[in-house]
C-alpha cells in the first residue's frame, strides 16, 4: 500500500483537483481521478525527494486562518494604497530568524507571508535560517517579526511535524 | 476498395513510416537505417511509376482522406502532372541518396536519413494534394526538412546562408497564409477545384481583393521558384549546401513552378474575372530576367557549386518563360524541360562534388590546381552536365529548348523569349567552358608535400546516373513529350479536373 500510494495527501489532492477540473460530479470522473491520484504521485516521486510528513488537521486549520488573514490584510493595504501618502509610508526590511528546518515548511511560511498583503518574502539566507521580508508599512519592525513568528511559524511547526 | 486504390497515399505513407523507423534505428544499427532509406526511395519510385502508368489513360483519380468528400475534407488528386512530379521526385531522391551514402555525407551530422525521408514526404505531399491549405502544410514539411538538410555538415558558410534561407522562407510562408486567408474569406473553401468554381462566381465588388489574393499567392510560389527579384536567397544557399542535398534541392525550386502550374489554371483561369491569369503580365518579363540573371551568374561564377546554383536559377527562368505562355504546347514544353532541368541541376551539383573531393584544398573553385585523380572522367561528367544545363545537344536540354522555342513562337513577346533563351544559352556555354577549362585543362605543378587525394570512382555513380537519365530523357523524348503534352492539356482543362474532384454536378 505504501508503495502504491506513497503520498496519500498528494493523491487525495489530485483526486479533488481532478474532480474540480472535470467540473462534473460523475462516477466515471471519480474513477479516472483515482487512477490519476495513484499514478501521478508514483510517476513524479523522483521529482520530490524526501517529502515531509504533514499533520493534515493542523494544515487545514492553518489554511483557514491564512484565508481570513488575506481578506483582512487586503482591506488594510487597500486603505494604505488609496489614502496614505508615500512620504508617510514606513517600508522596512524584516530579517526573520526561523526555527523551521524543512524547505517545505519554510516555503509555506514564506508563501503565507507573501499572500497576506503588506508583506513580501524576498529571500532566504544562505544558511537557511533567516527569511528576508519586505513590509510595506512597518513602523515597528520587531513587533512585526514577532507577530509573524507567533501567528504563522508556530502553527507551521505543528503542521510539519 | 482494393489496395491499388490506396496507392495514391503510398508516396506519403512510405516516407512517413521510413523516417521514424530510420530515426529509431539510426543510433544503433546504422546500416539498417540506410537500408530503410533506400528501400523507401525504391518503394516511392515504384509507387510513382505505377501511378504514372495509371494516369496515362487520362483519368484523374482522387483520394479522399478520412473518407470525407471534397470539398469538405482533403483530397489527393492524381493526374498526369502529379504523377510526373512524383516520379521525378523519387528518382531524384534515389540519386541524392546514393551520392550521400557513397560519399558518406550522411554521416557528417545527425539524422540525415530521417530528415531525408521527411523531405520526400513534403515533396510528395505537395505534388499530390488538391487542397490549398494542405499544400501550405506540405510546403512547410518540405521546408523545415530542407532547412536541416541544407545545414547538414554545418560550418560557418552554411550557417550564415542558412539563416537567410530560413528567414526568407518563413516570410514566404507567412505571405502564403495571408493569401490563403483572403481566398477563404472570399470563397469559403480550400479545395482548389472548388475554389476555382467559386472564384468564377464572385461579384464585381470582390474583384480587387481577389486579384490581390491571386498575385500574393503566385508571388509566394515565385519566391520558392526563385524568380527574380525573389531569387536572392538561392545562390548562396545552394552553393554551400552538401552537394548530395543540393542535388535533391534541384527539385525544390520546381515545387514553386509546379504550384504555379497547378494553381493558376485551376483557380485563376478564364473565369476568374480580374484575377484571370493574374500573374501573366509579370511572369514573362520576370522569367526572362531570371534566365538572364541565372546565366549571367553562371558566366561569372568562380566555382562549380556556385555555378550550379546559378544554373538552377537560369533554368527556372527558361522554364517559366514557357509557363508564361499558358498554352497547351507551352505548358507541354515546360513540363518536359522541368524534368530535364531538375536532373541537369542535380548532375551539376554532383559533379561539383566529384571535383571538390579530388582537388583537396582547391575544392571546386575555378582556379587551376595540380592534376587530380580521374580527371579525365570527371571532366567528361562535367562536360555532360554542362551540356545538359545549357541545353546543347545531344542531351535533353536541347530538345527542351527547341520545344520552348517552337511553342512560344507567335505568342506575345516571343521575340524576347527567343532572344533570351538563345543568348542565355550562349552565356552559359561560355561560362561553363571557362570554369571547365580552368579545372580540367589547366594545371599547376603539385605543391610540395601535398599528397594527391585518392578517391574511389564510386562517387561518380550518382552523377553518371543523372546524366544517363538525361540521355534517356533525350532518347525517349517522343513519348515523354507526348505524356507532357497530355498532362498540359489536362492541367488546362480546369473544368474536367473540377468534375473529377467534386463529382459530376
Amino acid at each position, binding site marked *: 500500500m505504501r508503495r502504491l500510494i506513497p503520498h496519500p495527501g498528494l493523491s487525495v489532492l489530485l483526486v479533488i483537483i481532478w474532480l474540480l477540473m472535470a467540473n462534473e460530479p460523475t462516477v466515471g470522473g471519480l474513477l479516472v481521478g483515482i487512477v490519476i491520484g495513484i499514478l501521478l504521485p508514483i510517476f513524479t516521486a523522483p521529482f520530490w525527494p524526501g517529502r515531509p510528513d504533514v499533520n493534515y488537521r493542523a494544515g487545514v486549520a492553518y489554511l483557514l486562518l491564512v484565508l481570513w488573514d488575506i481578506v483582512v490584510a487586503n482591506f488594510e493595504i487597500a486603505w494604505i494604497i488609496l489614502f496614505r501618502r508615500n512620504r508617510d509610508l514606513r517600508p522596512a526590511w524584516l530579517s526573520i530568524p526561523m526555527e523551521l528546518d524543512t524547505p517545505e515548511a519554510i516555503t509555506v511560511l514564506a508563501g503565507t507571508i507573501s499572500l497576506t498583503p503588506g508583506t*513580501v518574502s524576498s529571500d532566504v539566507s544562505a544558511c537557511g535560517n533567516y527569511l528576508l521580508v519586505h513590509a510595506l508599512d512597518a513602523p515597528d519592525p520587531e513587533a512585526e517579526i514577532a507577530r509573524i513568528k507567533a501567528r504563522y511559524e508556530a502553527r507551521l511547526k505543528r503542521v510539519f511535524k | 476498395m482494393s489496395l491499388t486504390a490506396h496507392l495514391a497515399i503510398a508516396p506519403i505513407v512510405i516516407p512517413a513510416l521510413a523516417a521514424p523507423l530510420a530515426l529509431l534505428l539510426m543510433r544503433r544499427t546504422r546500416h539498417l537505417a540506410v537500408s530503410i532509406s533506400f528501400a523507401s526511395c525504391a518503394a516511392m519510385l515504384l509507387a510513382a511509376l505505377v501511378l504514372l502508368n495509371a494516369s496515362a489513360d487520362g483519368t484523374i483519380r482522387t483520394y479522399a482522406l478520412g473518407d470525407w468528400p471534397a470539398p469538405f475534407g482533403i483530397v489527393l488528386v492524381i493526374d498526369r502532372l502529379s504523377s510526373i512530379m512524383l516520379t521525378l521526385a523519387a528518382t531524384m531522391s534515389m540519386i541524392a541518396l546514393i551520392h550521400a551514402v557513397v560519399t558518406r555525407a550522411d554521416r557528417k551530422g545527425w539524422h540525415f536519413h530521417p530528415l531525408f525521408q521527411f523531405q520526400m514526404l513534403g515533396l510528395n505531399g505537395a505534388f499530390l494534394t488538391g487542397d490549398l491549405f494542405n499544400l501550405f502544410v506540405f510546403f512547410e514539411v518540405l521546408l523545415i526538412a530542407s532547412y536541416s538538410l541544407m545545414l547538414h555538415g554545418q560550418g560557418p558558410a552554411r550557417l550564415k546562408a542558412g539563416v537567410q534561407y530560413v528567414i526568407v522562407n518563413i516570410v514566404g510562408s507567412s505571405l502564403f497564409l495571408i493569401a490563403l486567408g483572403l481566398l477563404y474569406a472570399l470563397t469559403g473553401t480550400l479545395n482548389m477545384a472548388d475554389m476555382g468554381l467559386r472564384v468564377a462566381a464572385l461579384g464585381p465588388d470582390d474583384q480587387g481583393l481577389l486579384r490581390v489574393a491571386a498575385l500574393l499567392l503566385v508571388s509566394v510560389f515565385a519566391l520558392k521558384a526563385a524568380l527574380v527579384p525573389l531569387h536572392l536567397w538561392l545562390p548562396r544557399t545552394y552553393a554551400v549546401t552538401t552537394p548530395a542535398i543540393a542535388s535533391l534541392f534541384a527539385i525544390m525550386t520546381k515545387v514553386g513552378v509546379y504550384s504555379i502550374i497547378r494553381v493558376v489554371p485551376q483557380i485563376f483561369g478564364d473565369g476568374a474575372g480580374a484575377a484571370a491569369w493574374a500573374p501573366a503580365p509579370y511572369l514573362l518579363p520576370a522569367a526572362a530576367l531570371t534566365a538572364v540573371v541565372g546565366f549571367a551568374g553562371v558566366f561569372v561564377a568562380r566555382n562549380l557549386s556556385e555555378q550550379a546554383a546559378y544554373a538552377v536559377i537560369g533554368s527556372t527562368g527558361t522554364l517559366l518563360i514557357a509557363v508564361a505562355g499558358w498554352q497547351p504546347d507551352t505548358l507541354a514544353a515546360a513540363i518536359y524541360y522541368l524534368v530535364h532541368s531538375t536532373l541537369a541541376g542535380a548532375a551539376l551539383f554532383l559533379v561539383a562534388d566529384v571535383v571538390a573531393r579530388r582537388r583537396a584544398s582547391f575544392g571546386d573553385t575555378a582556379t587551376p590546381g595540380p592534376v587530380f585523380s580521374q580527371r579525365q572522367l570527371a571532366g567528361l561528367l562535367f562536360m555532360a552536365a554542362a551540356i545538359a544545363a545549357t541545353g546543347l545537344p545531344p542531351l535533353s536540354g536541347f530538345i527542351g529548348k527547341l520545344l520552348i522555342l517552337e511553342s512560344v513562337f507567335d505568342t506575345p513577346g516571343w521575340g524576347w523569349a527567343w532572344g533570351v533563351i538563345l543568348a542565355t544559352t550562349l552565356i552559359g556555354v561560355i561560362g561553363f567552358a571557362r570554369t571547365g577549362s580552368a579545372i580540367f585543362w589547366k594545371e599547376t605543378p603539385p605543391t610540395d608535400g601535398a599528397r594527391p587525394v585518392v578517391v574511389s570512382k564510386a562517387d561518380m555513380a550518382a552523377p553518371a546516373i543523372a546524366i544517363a537519365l538525361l540521355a534517356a530523357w533525350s532518347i525517349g523524348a517522343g513519348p515523354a513529350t507526348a505524356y507532357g503534352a497530355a498532362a498540359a492539356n489536362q492541367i488546362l482543362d480546369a473544368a474536367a479536373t473540377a468534375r473529377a474532384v467534386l463529382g459530376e454536378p
Partner: protein
Amino acid sequence: MSGLGILFDVIISVLIVIGASFALIGSWGMVRLPTLMERLHGPTKATTLGLGGMLVGSMLYFMLGEGQWALHELLISLFLFITAPISANMIAKVHLHELRTQGDDAVAGPAGRPAAPSDKANWATYEAPHADSVAATSES
C-alpha cells in the same frame, strides 16, 4: 425572481464588484507607490482578493444562477495561491540583485538595503546557499 434569487444576485454582484475593485486598487498601487519593493505589494491584491472575489463570484454565478456545476474556478485560485508568492519572491530577488550590481545607481527605496542576517551568512541572492543547509535544495 424569488427573494433567494435576489439575495444570490446581490452576493454575486458584491463579489464581482469587490474583486474588480481590488484588481484596480492593486494596479493603482503598482503605479503610485514609490519603488519596486513597494509596488510589489500591489499585485498581491489583484491575485488574492481581486481575482479570488471574481472567481468565487463566477462560481456562484454558474452554480446558482445557471444551475451548472462550477467549482473549477477554485483551481485557478489554488494555482495562483501557490505561484504568486514565488513570483513575488523572484522579483524581489531581482531587486536585491540590482541593488548589489548597480551599486549607487540602484534606487534602494525607503526601506533601504537589507542588512545581512548574521555574520555567518548573507542572503541567498548574494551568497550561494551553504551546501549542508536546507537552502541548498537541488544544488548540484
